């Protein structure tokens, strides 16, 4: 009886994770603009992998392998949203006509993002270090 309950829970979690990943894929192909696609990919990627790995943990029970799975979840939750954030920020940085493609709420931030950092020559560096 316990086995059946465990199987049902893990199957439900895995299927939910698969559904999330599938909707992410559909979003990546369906949306027109890069930021929308990043939104779909990053969001559903995170949730989908969490649900699938939780399903696997429930299926295997509490072992060393499932502890490692938890570490994998922590790693992916640290890295995947940051990657999505960086891709979105790159789009804001390099798209010259952002307001044509998306609704810009904070124009000042966008302008500030586009200002190139003042390039310093190696001579300046040595002076700084000398001081």
């Amino acid at each position, binding site marked *: 009886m316990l086995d059946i309950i465990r199987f049902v829970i893990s199957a439900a979690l895995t299927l939910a994770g698969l559904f999330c990943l599938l909707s992410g894929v559909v979003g990546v192909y369906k949306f027109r603009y890069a930021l929308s696609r990043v939104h779909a990919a990053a969001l559903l990627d995170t949730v989908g992998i969490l649900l699938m790995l939780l399903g696997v943990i429930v299926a295997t029970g509490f072992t060393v392998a499932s502890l490692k799975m938890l570490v994998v979840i922590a*790693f992916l939750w*640290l*890295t995947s949203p*940051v990657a999505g954030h960086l891709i979105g920020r790159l789009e804001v*940085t390099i798209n010259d006509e952002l307001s044509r493609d998306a609704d810009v709420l904070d124009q000042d931030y966008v302008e500030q*993002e586009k200002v190139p950092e003042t*390039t310093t020559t190696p001579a300046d*560096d040595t002076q700084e270090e000398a001081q």
Partner: protein
Amino acid sequence: MAKIRPDYETSWFGRLMHWLENGSTALDDAMTDEMDAHSRDHLVDSEHHHATQEHALEERRHAALEREQRMYSSLHQWASTKGSRLMRWVYIVASVVMCVGIIALLLNTAANLPPYGDPDNPVNNEVSAHYITQGQAETGAVNIVAGMILDYRAFDTLGESNVLFIAAVTVLVLLRLAPSRDGKPTTEMLEAEADDRLYEPKHDMILQHQANLLVPLILLFGIYVVMNGHISPGGGFSGGAIMGAGLILYLNAFGFRKTERFFTFRTFQIVSLMALAFYACSKAYSFFTGANHLPSIFSPGTPGMLFSAGLIPYLNIAVGLVVCCTMYAFYTLFRKGDM
């Protein structure tokens, strides 16, 4: 010395060679004909024939030009209507034929493979049996794969490390923007630097916090994988790739000015060359002693300990360093052209 026929210019071979070298137009052909006629007629050239002759030649040139234009336009029409349709069919038929051919070839190969797991298979010979039964005692490595690639077949692994190194050197030759002779950065380098800072999100706080947390963990995990290459699955190649990824993450979070403090082009040169030279020298030593049945100072030790398995941990470190430096060098060279 080759003789040239007197009528080489007007022979079909001469015209073919001329056409191959310079291309040809109808006007050229007409001019050639004209010269031909001139050379035939110049003995009997007379004044009152001259004008009519000029006229006839002019007409012939005109006709030749028109003929050529007609030919080109009909060719163009054919290519844009019937020709493209024909070529599409040719493409479809050729792709189907090639796909079916490759599938049939692969299926035929798969059908003729020996059954999986059969003890009589050709792979189950005395070599693999020797590796499995004697490998741990002879090399001291619990991980049989590490024992194979870094002891029995270490020469092959040296070649693989060299392949990586040569690839990095090739990318260096192609992409590196070297400073000028007096050590000052060239305008190309400054442009590359400006581009690099322009097309990149700057000082991302989220990425920096995440990198602060993750980079030490990633580097530690890479070192663990390298050092335990002879005990558990892993080794120089995978561990070096993990360490290189950690370095790349650090670079992306904090920029070149931070990484230049510990990793410059000089570091890459020194580390790669020292690692490869150490690998070559130590394997030369063990080949020499092994071939001459001399006692080696590297003993297999106790299998399962960190410092066991003779040379394997040190060779793993060398391979890991080469792979790490190569990964990082590839990234920086493709991004900025320098390290």
